[in-house]
């Protein structure tokens, strides 16, 4: 596979994992705009585990995910009772604190960045992305997924029907944080170099965009959103600097035309009906 194609694929697959990191909290109606902070925790924890402790690569990823979900648990317990803008701003502030602290930590290279030992090829990343998509799809089909949707649609009604709203929200943010940690760990060991400044707000914003643009009503919306956003600038590459402007414009227009995301439940039902009619027509 050519180098360019490998880079695009790795970028796409890590974007897909990030999309699900933003999607899981969104499925309960929590807008986490600090995904990059959790990703940063995962990346640095995994890199340190590889370099300092010398753990095998597989365990490094686990360490990265555990550290990120630990951070997620701390944040979730303190902010899950907040609503709307307060919640989002708290996750934003958390991410800024993480990068600001890591930039000042000379143990991990500070502002100069940190060279990562251990390398993940495209195969490992593909496997991880498949596991994430499959895992989230399965989870959304269980009672947990049902509880997530109930909390998103109406917290009070969900509580009346016996859903533990607080625990559900905490769980969603922790799972999201663990996925962000996984993405961070894969990123660190694929690119072999991390810099805290790169885990900035635009990265968090992108993760949220992946999920919201694809649609949060179905589990495959984020997959579509991440693929579209990661690939559209590549397809628009011929148009040079216009591509990001075009990308932003597409996003704005899409939000007006399809405010619930490209894929909604109604759309999937309609698609299913069309496919069925088509199948019968052939028979």
């Amino acid at each position, binding site marked *: 596979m050519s180098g360019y194609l490998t880079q695009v694929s790795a970028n796409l697959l890590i974007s897909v994992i990030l999309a699900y990191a933003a999607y899981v909290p*969104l499925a309960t109606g929590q*807008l986490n705009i600090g995904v990059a902070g959790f990703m940063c925790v995962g990346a640095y924890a995994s890199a340190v585990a590889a370099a300092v402790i010398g753990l095998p690569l597989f365990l490094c990823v686990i360490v990265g995910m555990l550290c990120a979900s630990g951070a997620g648990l701390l944040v979730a317990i*303190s*902010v899950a009772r*907040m*609503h*709307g*803008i*307060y919640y*989002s*701003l*708290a996750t*934003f*502030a*958390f991410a*800024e*604190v993480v*990068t*600001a*602290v890591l*930039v*000042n930590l000379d143990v991990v290279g*500070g*502002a100069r960045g940190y060279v990562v030992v251990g390398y993940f090829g495209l195969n490992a990343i593909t496997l991880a992305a498949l596991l994430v998509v499959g895992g989230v799809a399965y989870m959304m089909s269980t009672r947990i997924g049902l509880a997530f949707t109930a909390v998103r649609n109406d917290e009070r009604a969900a509580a009346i029907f016996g859903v533990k709203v607080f625990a559900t929200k905490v769980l969603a943010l922790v799972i999201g944080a663990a996925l962000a940690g996984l993405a961070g760990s894969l990123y660190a060991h694929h690119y072999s170099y991390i810099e805290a400044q790169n885990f*900035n*707000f635009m990265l968090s*914003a992108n993760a*949220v*965009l992946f999920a*919201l*643009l694809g649609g949060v009503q179905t589990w495959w919306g984020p997959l579509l959103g991440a693929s579209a956003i990661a690939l559209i600038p590549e397809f628009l590459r011929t148009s040079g*600097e*216009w591509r*990001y*402007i075009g*990308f*932003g*414009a597409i*996003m*704005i227009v899409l*939000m*007006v035309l399809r*405010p*619930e995301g490209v894929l909604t439940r109604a759309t999937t039902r309609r698609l299913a009906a069309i496919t069925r009619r088509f199948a019968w027509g052939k028979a």
Partner: protein
Amino acid sequence: MIEQQLINGLMLGSIYALVGVAFSLTIGMLNFLNFSVPGLFMLGGVLSYGLLKAGFHWSIAFVLTIAAITVVSLVIERFTYRWLRLSSPFIPLVSSIGFLIVLENSAIMRFGSESMRVPSPFKLTDLHLAGLFISAPQLLGLVIALVGAAIMSLMLKRTKLGRSIRGIAENPRTAETLGINVNRTVSSIYVITGIFAAVGGILFALNYQQVAWYMGQEVAAKGLAAMVLGGMGSLWGPVIGGFLVGLIEVFSIAYVSSDAVNAVVYGTLLALLLCWPNGLLGARISTVERM
């Protein structure tokens, strides 16, 4: 020189105050975290640079910049409010991030991705008071931030537009029933937000004599911190919060290290959100809670 640091902090804080007010207006009145504010701030700085460079007199350059920002704000209003009124609260936020991407990349296309040096447009004598150094643009910034907030506060209390804005903040549907022209009022909120952000950008360009496409991001994050510190949705809260953030920043550069600034500022912000979410002057919590 603790007095000099105090002055520098207040001057820097006035820019954060203007951006904080811009954020606070759309949150307080419309429950909407407007991420296009850093883009409008940047546009204010970069456009005035471009017009000055093109040879316009500074007064014309600034007026044209404000006019352009007004038009852009009205476009943003269409795409983040008017045509999205029935959607979930996340959606306007996504659109405003879309506008941020468009604005920043337009600036890159027109002016390149390097930071540019702004020529000083007018010769104002800097003040030397009892051994302290106060530059004229800094003083101008301080005055504009305070006067802008004062005018806004009077406008909200006394004028018809102010009453309409407060009515919409209370409840848009009731406001409409009572005969308030919601569309026009919301448009004016957007325009006022844009002007606050743009004036901040122009002052930044004058003070630091440097503009770049990314200049909005750092300042906007500090402006958000200022708004939360002072109380989300209020008017004087972000002003006071802006000065506090400016002081925290200047003093942590002077006495800790320049790298510690962000850790201190955002650490304070996170701690405040967790312990004291209403901020210092946050009496308007009810309007925010509705979201």
